[in-house]
């Protein structure tokens, strides 16, 4: 047979792999993405990171060792051109070697296991002096509630820097949603690993940002048609800025002056007519009286304080809002018709759209 000529090429594969791996690591280091798990920005992301790095080196060492052995045997023991056709020595095994390659990996793993178990408990522990944020996963947007301040918001939320935030999470409020709830997962890689939100149960996750800035994430547990469009934005503020944000959010929404197009929009918002469902039956714009408690849709009291909407996938621009109200499904696939989930198309006329969009844009 003519295989010998191919042995040289065999050698190139692992080399190519190595080059590839190296290139990949380098590229990663200069990645600037705000959703990068390799770039922790707080203690709850840092600790796992510090754990995985040595493990990655160990894995790389094992990898190089095994591939090295393979390459070595391939090169050394290929059948040579001048081979006499006799058979090699028939070796059946070697007990000492078997013991060695049973014990060494076991020891390596035992060494890795200790910090792993420690890490598990550390990350899950209740931190000191934390801020609680309740998180509810809906199909397909996140809702946030600050029990300390009685603030509701959606998709985007703010946290103070240098202070642990403990998320108390569940999926879909059964009482006020036709969506009986499916499993979602909260994941902002630079702040912490992910944790699932399970309907009917409460799970917890600690996050913390050391630096102010914006941290991105998204739902990481497949939750149906718009799973890809269920994103998370965290704004981390220095303490003073955070207090200002809280202050702004606790304000009731301004009621537009009579006769303006915004006021027209507000009327439509409360009562759409023609047997159409009113916006207010799903959305809350809290104007100061009564409970501040949203229904099944996102709280819109300070809509404009957010940069993006609809699962944080669209910029908060006039055109986008208009398109969203005109035909929500074209902006984000939902299942209102079949399942009652998401935002319905309310067949708004152009005039109604003008008024409603103007009203939305006044909600800052």
């Amino acid at each position, binding site marked *: 047979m003519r295989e010998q000529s191919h042995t040289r090429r065999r050698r190139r594969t692992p080399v190519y792999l190595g080059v590839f791996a190296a290139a990949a690591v380098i590229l990663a280091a200069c990645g600037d993405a705000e959703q990068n798990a390799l770039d922790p920005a707080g203690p709850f992301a840092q600790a796992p990171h510090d754990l995985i790095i040595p493990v990655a080196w160990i894995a790389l060492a094992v990898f190089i060792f095994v591939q090295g052995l393979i390459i070595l045997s391939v090169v050394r023991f290929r059948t040579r051109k001048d081979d006499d056709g006799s058979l090699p020595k028939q070796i059946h095994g070697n007990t000492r070697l078997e013991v060695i390659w049973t014990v060494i990996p076991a020891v390596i793993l035992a060494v890795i296991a200790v910090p792993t178990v420690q890490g598990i408990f550390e990350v899950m522990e209740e931190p000191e002096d934390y801020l609680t944020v309740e998180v509810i996963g809906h199909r397909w947007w996140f809702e946030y509630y600050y029990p300390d301040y009685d603030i509701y918001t959606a998709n985007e939320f703010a946290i103070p820097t240098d202070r642990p935030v403990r998320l108390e999470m569940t999926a879909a409020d059964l009482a006020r949603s036709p969506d009986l709830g499916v499993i979602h997962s909260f994941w902002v890689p630079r702040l912490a690993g992910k944790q*699932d939100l399970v309907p*009917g149960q409460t799970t917890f996750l600690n996050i913390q940002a050391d630096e102010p800035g914006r941290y991105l994430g998204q739902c990481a547990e497949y939750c149906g048609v718009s799973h890809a469009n269920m994103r998370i934005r965290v704004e981390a503020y220095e303490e003073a800025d955070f207090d200002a944000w809280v202050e702004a959010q606790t304000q009731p929404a301004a009621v537009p002056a009579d006769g303006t197009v915004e006021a027209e929009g507000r009327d439509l918002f409360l009562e759409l007519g023609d047997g159409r469902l009113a916006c207010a039956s799903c959305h809350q714009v809290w104007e100061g009286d009564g409970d501040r408690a949203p229904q099944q849709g996102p709280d819109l009291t300070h809509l404009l304080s957010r940069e993006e909407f609809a699962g944080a996938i669209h910029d908060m621009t006039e055109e986008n809002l208009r398109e969203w109200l005109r035909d929500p499904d074209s902006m984000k696939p939902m299942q209102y018709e079949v399942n009652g989930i998401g935002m319905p198309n309310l067949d708004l006329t152009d005039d109604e759209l003008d008024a409603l969009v103007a009203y939305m844009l006044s909600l800052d």
Partner: protein
Amino acid sequence: MSSTTEQTGYAGRPRQRDGFVGWITTTDHKKIGVMYFITVLVFFALGGIESGFIRWQLAQAEQNVLTEEIYNQFFTMHGITMVFLVVMPLSAAFFNYLIPLMIGARDVAFPRLNAFSYWVYLFGGIFLYSSFALGGAPNGSWVGYAPLSTDAVSNMAFYAVGLNILGVSSLAAAVNFIVTILNMRAPGMTFMRMPVFVWMALVTNFLLLFALPIIAVALFMLNVDAVFGGQFFEPATGGDPILYQHLFWLFGHPEVYIMILPAMGIISEILPVNSRKPLFGYAAVVFAGAAIGFIGFGVWAHHMFTSAIGPVARSAFALSTMFIAVPTGIKIFNWVFTMWGGKLRFNTPMLFSIGFVSMFTIGGLSGVTHAIVPHNAQQHDTYYVVAHFHYVLFGGALFGLIAGIYFWFPKVTGKMMDEKLGKWHFWTWLAGFNLTFGPMHMSGLLGQPRRTAVLPGELGSTVELYNLLSSLGFVVLFGSALVFLYNLIDSTRNGEASGDDPWDARTLEWITPSPTPFENFHVVPTITHRDEFWHRKYAEDEAGRAIPVPAGAAEDPDAGAEHDEHIHMPDPSYWPLVQTLGFFPFGYGLVYGNFLLIGLGLAWLVIGMYGWIIEPVAEGDDDEPDDAEQVAPTATAGAH
């Protein structure tokens, strides 16, 4: 084979062994193996095309090639197809063809049950794919988590019922192969003389035996919840969605070893043959395989590290998961040392086997990093995991199985597959594979979650680059697959004649002529060694050097064996096919909650069962022939 049974006096039993009727009524393990193989090719093409669309959609950020609905259906069906309709049945194809040959038997223990398994597999696959025409394919991912999957819009009733049908096939096959291996070995074939492939088949089938009932329950519960108003996983009344995850992964993790162990068995046969020396540490490899299977039952919650389980469970499962690397490592090192000191021949099967060892190691190591629980929270449900399991499934299971295809092709057809094309296939396959799945490690760590229909631009340019590379990799793989397909078809027709023992092989199946004759062995061999065939060809001198035994010099070990007067071979039967059709009404009934259809299907299955039972006793049937009938003259043996 051309022999027809010339029985007289019995009605309703097909006589033909060739032609179309011969195929659809066959109970011959070899033909059934080939049918499995061809069916797998079709499903592989489907699964591959689905993944092609996935890669197309993700080639750039914010693309709109597919709608979310279609994307979700495609990745779900891709996963289901590759796992349940490609890798598992391809392993079954090898089990079918090889187990009887390797243990010196003439067929499996229950030939008609074997045909039944095949038809259930085929119809289960058709059933699943029929959902595309009936309002949409399942779109709840291959793990089918509740309560999402109990929602009607997920179409997951098709998944629950379809997989349960496939489960029936696998369970029947598992019982069949276990009995075959335990009870039909040729004289002298002790456990420690069995080829490693047979060992791995045994372990795999035990895993199936114990894992399938668990998923059967999980799927049935899903079915009841989705269609009949059950409350198993319904949070509103206190049902616990996590229970589904436990049940699924109690099956799901053994399942991944069900997919890898047959491939490990295959390369344990190929590496020694092409290193021209016996497997290093046979006992260790066998033991490690059994250990992997056993420990594999105790690690399931490592898929649930970010789910609602507490720190104690997370720790316990992290430990058991890491521990499984030890027996796997034993195998890797034994394979490498099988090559060490040998005289390696780099034919295509060998290349794929070495590729297996190399690529599987990568996937295994990333698996160990998954077990670092605190960091698993970063990796879970990202493309890093997608990379892991494609490295073990594609780089592992599929590489091994393809190696097996090249290796045993001459056994099945009597022809060689083209070596040149084979090498083209290998190198493009290896390159395309790494190009597709290598970058996913990075895109995952950079924050790209899996099962997302759009690649958000916000993830950054590096991720887009990696995704583009992955998509290019698919193009390479596609071309490579075409080369393979061409090679298969062309070699079947025009391949070089292989002779009976083209590889100078070691195990029993090569003792028989290629292609394998209908009754496998003219004389059932008596086994005196592990690697029996090798020992009939070579003797070892004191130094451990092998010297060929001149043909005819050694005593024919089978000379003393009684030449069977007449060989009993199983007769063809319509019933497995006919009965299995009952799964259609039954299945659709369960999907649509239609009790009429369910009843019809059940009645059909029962009637089919009776047809099967009262089928005339034929010589070669797996029924005890009555004394009077046993004297009936047998035509099968005469044909040779």
